[in-house]
């Protein structure tokens, strides 16, 4: 097997099988026989937050950079998420008089992450989140005036992109990169294999250009035969920034057999495990791969993240309540971490699809970006009712109990303390459920974030199972990495994770 030429090795790979059996030859094969089609200093896989920030920092150092994106669309999950970015010691915190610290950020994250987080990575994110904010603002990203206060955070620390989506950050970054002469962005180009030299360093990749992702296939990574092979040399390094695997039906089920094949996800269809598995093949340490997060703010009446999610994140959970439709009673702290909330909600949902109902009033809606409410209402996933009676009737909630729950909750807000579930009602700006009209929406948790992935160190270098040292030439950032968020990630902590470690990967190459 050691005599297999490099060329044939990758040809075989391209035909689509036997890679694991042949994987051990990768480090021994003769890389000199690979005829490179193109040469770069840095090859970046993916085009979301992590990829774009890695591209900016490495290209600004004068490196010749290529971004390789398998989808036709730029930005992966980063262009479709809620655009929420937690920053410690930010200018807005200063303006709003919020006392925050790196330690508090870490404490909040560790609590949600059930203490299995890798603290050294968390610390880097907290410490450098302001640098990431500066980076995207330099590109032209704009943010909503007020800080958001998301579930599980002790204090408000979350910036919300001005257009209410991650695209408000991605598009400026993408436009910024398009102006740089030393950056090439290749869409519909899929990373296929790593090219390693004799010492096991990553020195290039095999890609397929003119690749067409096919969401009709059960397993695109394995079954899709489109595209033309190209070899790219990576003189200084390869950055894996290809995201998570929430849409990989096979792989997610291996990690958590409770996840049914038809379970909905907020992710874009290209979020599969292909690139992650290739990194495992070259020896990357797997971390927390089976910890998969559900977003508790989604709605069963629509597909994906949809329009209700942002409404719930910003309005109903912060300024309102979530009730059991059968009993009219609250059943959780609406601002707990995602894992706590998803677990509480699944208890109801699994009881004959008894979807919980999230409720808030007009004052709450007046406190959020008007577009978020408008979109959700027009989509028909959030509904407006003139009275609590109407709302209760629409969802079949027992009226007397619901009224009692609301009265009690309003008293908790007044007192600044929720003895039932410990919701930080003192941070709800005194907003009660009192002013008509009232808003209601059905809730369900959806597959949102894969916590686990590749082990990286604080320099964004991928660690090898074999040597316990960095794999030379291999970097990773964003959702493809694991450990940072432990068992459950706090909302708005992924964007700083992606941006910070992307930035660091670029700085270190």
């Amino acid at each position, binding site marked *: 097997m050691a005599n297999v030429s490099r060329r044939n090795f990758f040809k075989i790979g391209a*035909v689509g*099988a036997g890679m694991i*059996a042949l994987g051990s030859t990768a480090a021994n094969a003769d890389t000199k026989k690979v005829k490179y089609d193109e040469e770069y200093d840095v090859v970046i896989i993916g085009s979301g937050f992590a990829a774009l920030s890695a591209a900016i920092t490495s290209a600004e150092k004068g490196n010749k950079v290529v971004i390789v994106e398998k989808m*036709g669309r730029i930005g992966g999950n980063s*262009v479709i998420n809620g655009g929420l970015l937690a920053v410690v010691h930010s200018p807005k915190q200063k303006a709003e008089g919020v006392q925050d610290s790196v330690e508090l950020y870490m404490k909040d994250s560790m609590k949600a992450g059930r203490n299995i987080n890798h603290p050294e990575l968390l610390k880097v994110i907290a410490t450098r989140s302001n640098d990431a904010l500066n980076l995207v603002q330099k590109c032209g990203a704009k943010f909503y005036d007020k800080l958001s206060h998301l579930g599980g955070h002790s204090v408000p620390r979350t910036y919300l992109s001005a257009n209410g*989506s991650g695209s408000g950050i991605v598009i400026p970054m993408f436009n910024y990169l398009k102006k740089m002469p030393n950056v090439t962005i290749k869409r519909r180009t899929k990373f296929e294999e790593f090219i390693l030299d004799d010492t096991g360093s990553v020195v290039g990749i095999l890609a397929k250009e003119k690749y067409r992702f096919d969401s009709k296939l059960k397993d695109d990574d394995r079954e899709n035969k489109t595209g033309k092979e190209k070899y790219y040399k990576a003189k200084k390094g390869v950055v894996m920034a290809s995201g998570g695997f929430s849409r990989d039906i096979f792989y997610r089920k291996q990690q958590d057999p409770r996840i049914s094949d038809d379970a909905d996800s907020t992710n874009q269809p290209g979020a599969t495990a292909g690139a992650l598995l290739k990194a495992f093949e070259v020896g990357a340490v797997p971390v927390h791969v089976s910890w998969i997060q559900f977003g508790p703010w989604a709605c069963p009446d629509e*597909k994906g993240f*949809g329009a209700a999610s942002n409404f719930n994140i910003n309005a109903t959970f912060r300024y309102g309540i979530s009730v059991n439709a059968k009993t009219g009673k609250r059943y959780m702290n609406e601002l707990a971490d995602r894992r706590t909330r998803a677990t509480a909600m699944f208890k109801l949902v699994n009881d004959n699809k008894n979807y919980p109902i999230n409720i808030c009033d007009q004052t709450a809606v007046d406190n959020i970006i008007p577009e978020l409410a408008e979109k959700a209402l027009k*989509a028909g996933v959030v509904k407006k009712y003139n009275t609590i009676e109407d709302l209760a009737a629409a969802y079949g909630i027992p009226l007397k109990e619901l009224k009692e729950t609301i009265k009690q909750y309003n008293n908790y807000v007044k007192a600044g303390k929720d003895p039932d579930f410990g919701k930080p009602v003192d941070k709800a700006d005194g907003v009660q459920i009192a002013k008509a009209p009232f808003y209601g929406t059905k809730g369900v948790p959806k597959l949102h974030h894969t916590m686990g992935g590749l082990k990286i160190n604080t320099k964004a270098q991928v660690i090898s199972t074999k040597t316990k040292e960095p794999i030379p030439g291999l970097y990773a950032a964003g959702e493809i990495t694991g450990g940072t968020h432990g068992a459950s990630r706090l909302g708005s902590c992924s964007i700083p994770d992606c941006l910070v470690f992307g930035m660091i990967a670029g700085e270190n190459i």
Partner: protein
Amino acid sequence: MKTKVKATFLFCFFLLLSCLYANSQQEESTTLSSNSDAKIKVTPEQKEKYHLKPVHAQLYFDCIFCHEGQGNNPENFEAPDEEVCLACHKSKLYLAKRLEFMDTLKANPHNSVHDGPNLYCDECHREHEPSVNMCSECHLKEIKNNIWMKATP
């Protein structure tokens, strides 16, 4: 010993496959380059298989209008780059402006909140098969409720 035999067999099998693959690639490229100037004859069967959208059919487009320099065998044609579409349709920002009436809630697909003018035309518009609406991956409700655009042409 047994594993070694198996491995050798597997290796030969893949080598064979890879040769076949390489050859098929070779043939394809020869056909394309040597016949790129030839006239394209489109049989009724092919016309049926690769039928055009009504608007383009009315304009009597032949294959080469979009597949210029791609040989004379429609089986080997590739999807043209978006520049080919934009040669007639100008630019996505122009289209976004022209179709502003669709722009309820900033959903104008040619310059959307998420993608700006950066989507490839054929993410949604297909010439030889039914078009799709990529936005429906997440916004099915808005489309079903007719808040947004109509069926993708």
